[in-house]
């Protein structure tokens, strides 16, 4: 098994992107989640006039501000990498990727930057309702930023709404709404934003529990838990619902990803979902995809994979071997192509691109339309022309299988935890059950692990593709030296680590100070 090749620019570029995206995703979910929670608290304050809610909103606003200030613009590091390490990809995707990112920049800048200033500086300078509107608009701005990023990401998983132009070697957007409203994008948006809400709720629960353990600021902490528990419970339940939707979309659009997530090598009708299992280590060598048993041990939930993936009890779910061999009937009634057939079509598309350019250079304009037609006819399999062996289409099965289960297990764990906390809080017995406060506090890392696991499932599961079926990662990268990618890797790692240390230390200091007595003139910052 070749996990990482230290002399490979592709592997270093992927690791660099994964590392920076992972760090970035430590900041983003808390921004998304805390934004809603502080907005709800301020809404209660405006409706009831109870200043304790204002005090609570201001405290979480302060924590939000620390996270926002330190996390802001860290996503731009990812955009730097598109231009530096992934220049072929960046050019090839053209305005499809650029447009959502540009909209995100504009939305983020105008909405968040404008209203965040009113949110922090505008207490008692604008009316209560105007301030509340500013707070909610900051929340909306943060959420819309996520929307455009996730639309861009969803297009990489399910490329639609574009047409390839052999003249410019770029994909050109022909249907903006098909891209923006693709079912993959919609599901990804809700699933991801909800995971941010859940992280925010887990954070509020953990910090509030700390206050209760320390027997400090009890009224504030109980109020925070009241909001956090119900918000967290709703978020996690909705994550499960949208997770099911994501599973359906993945099965429809990226069957190899779901087969890898399930360790499903041999397809079957009425396929079960593996609840617990231990994969056969011999299968980690991808060339063994057609040999030996997939599992040493497993417990399945019968039929559930067929139901999730195809909404039918006995639907056929193709395994890794089926997807490589082809020949099974797809949902639309057509027969699935084998890897070899896709490879032939991919090579035809690449050859047509080459011929198009030669004909253009030699002035044989009458032949251009024919080459373009061949290219576009086979473009859906363009990326297969860069692959040699069928096993290259298989993502890292053990990583996906176990990471997916970690994510799901944490999700259900938190549903239970929030339900218990909500119950105790409702019965006013939370302070009598200190064990649940300790559990709530020490569970916080799990919320972050679940978020990271989700991205691993999504992005590792897309491999070997940068753009599903159209462009593999090895054709996407720039012709760089390994040393230069390693250097930027180290620089980004240092930068993000310093920022994270700063974030944690400033936050801990402010949390220890606790919510301040409300003074109308006292600024949050």
């Amino acid at each position, binding site marked *: 098994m070749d996990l990482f090749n230290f002399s490979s620019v592709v592997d270093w570029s992927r690791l660099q992107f994964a590392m920076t995206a992972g760090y970035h995703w430590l900041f983003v979910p808390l921004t998304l989640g805390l934004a809603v929670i502080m907005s709800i608290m301020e809404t209660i304050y405006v409706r009831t006039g109870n200043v304790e809610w204002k005090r609570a909103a201001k405290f979480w606003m302060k924590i939000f501000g620390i996270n926002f200030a330190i996390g802001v613009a860290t996503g731009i590091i990812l955009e730097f990498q598109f231009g530096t390490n992934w220049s072929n990809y960046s050019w090839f995707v053209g305005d499809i990727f650029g447009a959502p990112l540009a909209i995100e920049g504009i939305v983020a800048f105008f909405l968040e930057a404008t209203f965040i200033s009113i949110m922090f*500086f505008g207490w008692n300078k604008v009316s209560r309702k105007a301030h509340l509107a500013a707070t909610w608009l900051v929340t909306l701005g943060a959420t819309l930023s996520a929307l455009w990023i996730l639309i861009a990401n969803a297009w990489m998983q399910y490329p639609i709404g574009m047409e390839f132009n052999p003249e410019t070697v770029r994909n050109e957007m022909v249907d903006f709404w098909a891209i923006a409203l693709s079912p993959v994008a919609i599901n990804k948006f809700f699933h991801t934003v909800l995971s941010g809400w859940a992280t925010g709720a887990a954070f509020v629960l953990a910090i509030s529990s700390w206050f209760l353990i320390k027997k400090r600021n009890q009224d504030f902490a109980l109020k925070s838990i009241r909001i956090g528990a119900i918000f967290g419970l709703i978020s996690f339940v909705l994550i499960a619902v949208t997770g099911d939707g994501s599973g359906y979309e993945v099965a429809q659009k990226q069957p190899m990803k779901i087969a890898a997530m399930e360790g499903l090598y041999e397809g079957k009708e009425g396929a079960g979902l593996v609840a617990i299992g231990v994969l056969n280590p011999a299968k980690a060598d991808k060339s063994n995809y057609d040999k030996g048993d997939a599992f040493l041990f497993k417990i399945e939930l019968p039929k559930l994979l067929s139901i999730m993936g195809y909404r039918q009890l006995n639907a056929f779910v193709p395994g890794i071997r089926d997807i490589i061999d082809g020949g099974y009937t797809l949902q639309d009634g057509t027969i699935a192509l084998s890897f070899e057939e896709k490879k032939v079509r991919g090579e035809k598309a690449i050859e047509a691109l080459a011929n198009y350019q030669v004909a253009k250079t030699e002035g044989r304009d009458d032949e251009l339309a024919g080459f373009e037609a061949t290219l576009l006819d086979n473009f859906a399999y363009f990326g297969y022309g860069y692959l040699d062996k069928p096993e290259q289409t298989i993502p890292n099965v053990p990583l996906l299988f176990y990471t997916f289960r970690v994510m799901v297990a944490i999700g259900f764990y938190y549903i239970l935890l929030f339900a218990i906390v909500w119950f105790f809080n409702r019965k006013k017995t939370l302070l009598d059950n200190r064990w649940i406060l300790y559990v709530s506090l020490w569970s916080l890392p799990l919320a972050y692990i679940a978020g990271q696991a989700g991205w691993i499932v999504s992005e590792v599961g897309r491999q070997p593709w940068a753009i599903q079926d159209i462009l593999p990662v090895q054709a996407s990268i720039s012709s760089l030296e390994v040393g230069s990618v390693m250097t930027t890797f180290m620089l980004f790692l240092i930068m993000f680590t310093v920022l994270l240390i700063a974030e944690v230390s400033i936050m801990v200091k402010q949390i220890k100070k606790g919510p301040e007595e409300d003074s109308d003139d006292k*600024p949050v910052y």
Partner: protein
Amino acid sequence: MTATKTKFNWFKMFWEGFTNMTTLGKTLWIIVIIKLIFMFFILKPIFSPNYLNKKFDNAEDKADHVRKELIDKP
């Protein structure tokens, strides 16, 4: 609680916001500014320039390069 009746002044809000800023606010602004300077004046131009922009001047040359890469990539 006294509600402010004076007309909202955008400039005044910013001015008072910045001049009355707490130590925490100042610390965060310093972090943001240092981070942005490091990202846009050191990381981006020196270590992470746009590959195609650095090597080619116009869109046609960039397209030719990417086409060649896509056709020749192993």
